[in-house]
């Protein structure tokens, strides 16, 4: 199979404009694929980050120091639901520490505050964000609980955004890849039609369909792989260029910079996708003309 590669390369060199069109459309589609994949992966990472944060905070009455038995009872009740990933008790002292850490830049806010003024609380992470509401309801009816707050809206909004990015990305990239496939098919079909006499001669001289179609399949693979590499390179450059801005925007969410391993995995996926589209396009283009 590899021996047909030089012939495929020769044919590409002899029709540079067709090759340029094929590589351009492949690059465009795979670039779009890269962008949406990075967006989807990024939004998924942000969502995961939020999902793993404490999502429900139940505050005890501020004039009360809960006994360990009372805290354990609430913990037991929560874990009995099987909806809870993690439960953490924050004492008044710990609450003060957190408060100080959060307001360390504003001494005025720290002056008059003591541990007694802050409520102890329980932080709960749900296994599934959809279960936040029943957990919150359960906490509300626990003894000595004064207030329950949870980030239901943020997480569910984020989940909606993530699934929208996936859906739009999948539809847009999918339709673009179909168009790319058709254009590759068309370009190689033109070449095959130009070489119809050659194909007939090869058949009459005893060539197998594999012998005839392999150079065209290689041609498609070369278009696909070249397009994938350019698309990946451009998207990586844009990502590197915009990392400082994005890192500031996503302050505290540790997803940037994107690891090299992740980017090379993306390159591998794109090369494979480009090669498959090119190969199948090339094969189908030549198959129509084969009789043997």
């Amino acid at each position, binding site marked *: 199979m590899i021996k047909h590669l030089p012939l495929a390369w020769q044919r590409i060199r002899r029709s540079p404009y067709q090759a340029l069109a094929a590589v351009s459309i492949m690059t465009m589609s795979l670039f779009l694929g890269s962008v949406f994949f990075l967006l989807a992966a990024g939004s998924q990472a942000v969502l995961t980050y939020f999902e793993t944060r404490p999502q429900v905070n139940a505050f005890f009455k501020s004039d009360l120091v809960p006994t360990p038995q009372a805290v354990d009872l609430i913990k037991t009740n929560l874990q009995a639901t099987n909806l809870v990933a993690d439960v953490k008790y924050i004492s008044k002292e710990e609450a003060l520490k957190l408060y100080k850490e959060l307001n360390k830049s504003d001494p005025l806010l720290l002056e008059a505050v003591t541990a007694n003024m802050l409520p102890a609380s329980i932080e709960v992470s749900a296994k599934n964000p959809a279960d936040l509401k029943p957990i919150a309801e359960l906490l509300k009816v626990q003894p000595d609980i004064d207030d329950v707050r949870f980030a239901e809206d943020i997480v569910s909004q984020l989940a909606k955004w993530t699934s929208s990015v996936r859906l739009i990305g999948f539809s847009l990239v999918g339709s673009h890849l179909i168009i790319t496939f058709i254009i590759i098919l068309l370009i190689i079909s033109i070449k095959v039609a130009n070489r119809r006499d050659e194909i007939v001669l090869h058949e*009459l001289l*005893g060539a197998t369909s594999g012998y005839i179609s392999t150079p065209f399949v290689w041609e498609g693979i070369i278009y696909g792989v070249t397009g994938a590499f350019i698309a990946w390179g451009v998207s990586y450059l844009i990502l590197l260029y915009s990392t400082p801005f994005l890192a500031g925007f996503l302050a505290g969410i540790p997803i940037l910079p994107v690891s090299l391993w992740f980017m090379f995995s993306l390159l591998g996926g794109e090369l494979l996708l480009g090669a498959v589209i090119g190969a199948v396009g090339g094969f189908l283009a030549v198959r129509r003309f084969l009789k043997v």
Partner: protein
Amino acid sequence: MISAQKLTKKFGNILALDAVSFDIAPGEFVFLTGPSGSGKTTVLRLIMRDLKPDAGKLVLFGPAKIHEYRRTIGTVFQDFKLLLDRNVYENTALPLEIMGAAAVDIDKAVKKALELMGLTARTDLFPAQLSGGELQRAALARAIVARPKLILADEPTGNLDPKTARAIVNLLTTLHSQLQTTIIMATHNADIVNHLDRRVISLDAGKVIKDTPKGKYD
């Protein structure tokens, strides 16, 4: 080697062959003669398995798989079918490349075939740079390069001057006598047929009208 029994072939409403029967033994040199449209090319295409008969039976030598079978045949096409973007050497090498022969063997066989056809000095030229006779010889070089058991030649002397035509046929007779290759040559060149004194199958309107061991052109 080849046995045709009541072969019939239609193209739409046109009857190209009408119950044609003949047998060809290994090592025979046979002329297929007849006017244009008499069915000569159709017979050759059926032997090449480029067409299937509508009726009748055609028993052929060699492997069952089409591509393997065709590798045992050398064909000289009426329109040469030389690839315009390949030079004489590359065109001649094509059957061996298709067979997957080693580069060293290809080089040896191609040089020998081109020498036999007197084309050694034309090796690097492209078809557009060759004369009619040279094109015909290049096509013949490609047909013999893989040492086929059977050579099918469809009007190999068409459009050639008498001297060049005679030279081409001399090459074919040399191959036949030296290599015992079976040769089936479709022609309406009366001079050549009458000169060589070989078996002649005459066709007219898709029928065999005469089959004589040492025939003349009618």
